[in-house]
């Protein structure tokens, strides 16, 4: 999802019999749904895994601004432009809530930024795909933020207090993102023949990257058992993906668009839709850095950080000078 392929910082799941008294008390709290707070004792592997997951989640919010920022100046109306600006501003805010949550675990925001910029931390694979036209912006809000919501609603119940609180806040705002996206694509799907064609094209291109957001199939996802036991992860990749498909298919049908996968079919026995797996080799390739936009995205991030350096330094120098003057006056 916004955090994919997070390697749990442990080797397999720890059995109760192998736990110390402290570890057992910690696991009891989690089993009783008592939130873990920053200054509570926690296993180092729990801390390390959370930093990886929250950090990657934060990076995704921030990098996620890039494909949309691309369209702010080209939005079709002033109203759509203001809406898109508000959404992109929200994404910056979401990144900030998450960096703050990671910081309560003892990892500084600057350090997380450095790891991202050096390519040592990832962000969601979805943002390595381009936004070619206005229909893509609608589809991103509707499908990508829609997929994010499915994941983030589950994560509201995560065991770490600051992460859970950030998720609650983010979910409230994210719902605006998905609805504005659906509204934009609806306008096109119900518009001229050419608009409808563009809407269909956007759905076709973004469907598989969207369902890839949940990460590999559970059978391939070998590290999640301990994360589930710690309630860092609350639902499995396949459960979340199925939930997303089930809620999205009727929406595509409502728009009168063709389903982007010929194998999508209601399975009355399961009570779920059948659908095709995405091309996982493409997913792993994008994760590795070979997606259509990986290089551009990272270069843009690094450039923004470096270009802002003199502003950050200048404001800090000014604040220090003011403080020194105040001390001298006292």
């Amino acid at each position, binding site marked *: 999802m916004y955090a994919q392929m997070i390697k749990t910082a442990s080797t397999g799941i720890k059995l109760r019999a192998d736990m110390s008294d402290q570890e057992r008390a910690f696991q009891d709290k989690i089993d009783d749904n008592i939130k873990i707070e920053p200054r509570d004792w926690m296993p180092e592997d729990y801390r390390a895994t959370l930093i990886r997951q929250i950090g990657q989640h934060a990076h995704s919010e921030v990098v996620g601004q890039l494909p949309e920022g691309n369209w702010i100046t080209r939005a079709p109306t002033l109203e759509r432009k203001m809406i898109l600006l508000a959404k992109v501003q929200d994404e910056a805010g979401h990144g900030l809530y998450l960096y703050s949550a990671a910081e309560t675990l003892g990892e500084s925001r*600057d350090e997380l930024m450095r790891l991202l910029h050096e390519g040592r931390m990832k962000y969601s694979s979805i943002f390595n795909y381009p936004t070619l036209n206005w229909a893509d912006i609608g589809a991103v809000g509707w499908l990508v933020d829609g997929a994010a919501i499915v994941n983030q609603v589950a994560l509201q119940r995560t065991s770490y207090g600051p992460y859970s609180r950030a998720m609650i806040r983010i979910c409230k705002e994210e719902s605006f993102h998905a609805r504005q996206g659906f509204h934009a694509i609806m306008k096109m799907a119900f518009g001229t023949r050419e608009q409808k064609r563009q809407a269909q094209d956007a759905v076709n291109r973004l469907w598989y990257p969207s369902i890839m957001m949940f990460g590999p199939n559970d059978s391939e996802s070998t590290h999640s058992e301990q994360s589930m036991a710690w309630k860092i992860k609350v639902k499995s990749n396949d459960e979340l993906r199925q939930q997303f498909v089930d809620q999205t298919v009727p929406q595509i049908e409502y728009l009168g668009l063709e389903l982007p996968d010929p194998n999508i079919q209601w399975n009355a026995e399961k009570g779920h839709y059948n659908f095709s797996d995405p091309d996982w080799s493409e997913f792993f390739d994008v994760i590795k850095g070979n997606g259509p936009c990986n290089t551009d995205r990272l270069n843009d991030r690094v450039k923004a950080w470096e270009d802002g350096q003199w502003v950050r330094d200048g404001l*800090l120098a000014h604040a220090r000078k003011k403080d020194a003057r105040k001390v001298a006056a006292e």
Partner: protein
Amino acid sequence: MKNEWPLWEVFIRGQHGMSHRHVGSLHAPDAETAVKNARDVYTRRNEGVSIWVVEAKHISATAPGDKGPLFEPSESKVYRHPTFFKIPGEVGHM
């Protein structure tokens, strides 16, 4: 990392008559910028009518391990609650 902006904790009064409540944190070079950033980050949807910021290093807190000795004693003092006292019905509302 010595050029990292300091961390500020943000408190917001949701509506008139309510107290300020902790909502999160942010980085800023000074108090004035912290207030401006808090306004942008934490009040984009009418969440508040007033903002406090305080640099995180100035906050003192109880330790998680002291929870028992600090807060458990009040659990046994049920007489501190008005419902502990049964007042005869004929006395009326009290």
